């Protein structure tokens, strides 16, 4: 994400997330081509691109759901070392269950639709080893409250909830364990515009209050503009442009980014 690698550096903080030169092909289709991404602690990295640009694949890799053909992935966390793509299934599961939160576009992927909403949040805590019912309940309630979920519906199953509420349950589940990294895959796509604004609002607030490092993937520039500090533009599996959010939106360099930005504005 740097303009010039030899530029003098001021910030000595190490990046929290570092994806390096990731490539992935499915049969003869290049899903990702030499993609790199960095996110510093507390910042929001936005990834934009149209459907099929590889942005969701990249996010799934960050959640260790997929392994690229080449490339590496590191997280600067205590007890986490080396290329995470080399971890075995068990280590991946534990890492994702405790350190990484994810909100999917489709709530069916992230939630047990017929369990209670609080139970969905409690599951994360159970995986992390919490065994007290009272504590589970309290922590699940706190997380749902932080996601601005109406607490009188605490035990309603997600299947009975609206799309916006389902996303809040997903969000509560994702933040229940105070993750180091929060991944958002089109979190507001498919919601009504007014509901979309409310969910974005919640995300923004959470980010301000907790300074969680986030990676948000969306084809919606408005969403990225609202949340992201830095933006990566992807097309056909490759990064076309990356930079500070205001620079990408005000002075896009690449023809594709210009087209994208101008189409929106």
């Amino acid at each position, binding site marked *: 994400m*740097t303009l010039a690698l030899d530029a003098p550096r001021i910030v000595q903080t190490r990046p929290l997330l570092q994806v390096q030169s990731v490539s992935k092909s499915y049969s003869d289709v290049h899903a990702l081509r030499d993609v790199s991404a960095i996110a510093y602690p507390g910042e929001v990295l936005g990834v934009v691109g149209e459907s099929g640009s590889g942005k969701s694949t990249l996010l799934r890799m960050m959640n260790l759901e997929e392994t690229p053909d080449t490339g590496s992935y590191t997280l600067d966390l205590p007890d986490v070392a080396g290329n995470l793509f080399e971890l075995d299934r068990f280590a991946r599961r534990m890492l994702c269950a405790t350190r990484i939160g994810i909100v999917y576009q489709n709530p069916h992927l992230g939630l047990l639709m017929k369990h209670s909403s609080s139970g969905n949040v409690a599951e994360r805590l159970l995986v992390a080893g919490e065994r007290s019912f009272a504590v589970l309940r309290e922590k699940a309630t706190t997380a749902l409250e932080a996601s601005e979920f109406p607490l009188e519906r605490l035990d309603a199953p997600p299947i009975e909830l609206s799309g916006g509420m389902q996303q809040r349950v997903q969000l509560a589940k994702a933040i229940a364990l105070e993750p180091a990294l929060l991944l958002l895959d089109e979190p507001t796509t498919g919601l009504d515009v007014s509901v979309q604004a409310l969910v974005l*609002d919640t995300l923004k607030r959470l980010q301000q209050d907790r300074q969680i490092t986030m990676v948000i993937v969306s084809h919606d520039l408005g969403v990225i503009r609202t949340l992201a500090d830095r933006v990566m533009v992807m097309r056909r599996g490759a990064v076309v442009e990356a930079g500070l959010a205001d*620079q990408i939106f005000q*002075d896009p360099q690449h023809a594709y980014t*210009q087209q994208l930005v101008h189409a929106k504005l």
Partner: protein
Amino acid sequence: MPTVLDVNGLSKGFTLHHLAKEIAAFDEISFSVAAGEFLLLKGANGAGKSTLLRTLYRSYLPQAGVIRFHSDHGPIDLARAADVDIAHLRRTEIGFVTQFLTARPRVSAEALVAEPLRLAGVATPEALDRARAALETFGVKPELWPAYPTTFSGGEQQKVNLARTLILPQKLLLLDEPTASLDANARAALVARLAELKAHGTAVIGVFHHPDDVLHLIDRVVDLTPNAIREEVRDDVAF
């Protein structure tokens, strides 16, 4: 006074791919600003005054040239620095006052103004006190302090914006027509605050449509009109 910013051979133009066109904004600009200096950017409409400010702030990427900024961490070329460094400098050393406030949902005016202080490590109660004082200086009514600026009028928003950007003395301050939508009282407060910051050692680069208010603060003028004499001393100001 030590130099804060050294701009050398800075050029910026825009490539409009869909029109296959290049639009030049300014070319080969060089100037420098020292601590406590107030620099006025001058030029006809479209001469690239705002563009230059945004380039210095890195909202725009320059095409050539060096922007040497003497940060607390040592000199750095803003034209080539890493995004994360720019973000850091924007939080700590470089302020930019635009005509618009980026209000955030459900954050009160006072919290918004106090934020730069809190990020700089000031305890929340003290930061809020100072924020309220700043809001008062700019003439924001006390009943609006705990309200959300998203609902404010343009003029009130701009006052909050100024209070926020100017609350923390920074090394370099970029002003893009900050007086545009202000009433007389707020303008006076702004000028007073700028004088204070200048005395404090802040280097200021500003674009003003009507620089009469700040005339007494201006040290030098840079004229961006093509083929104009690039730099003049304060005494030669002629509008």
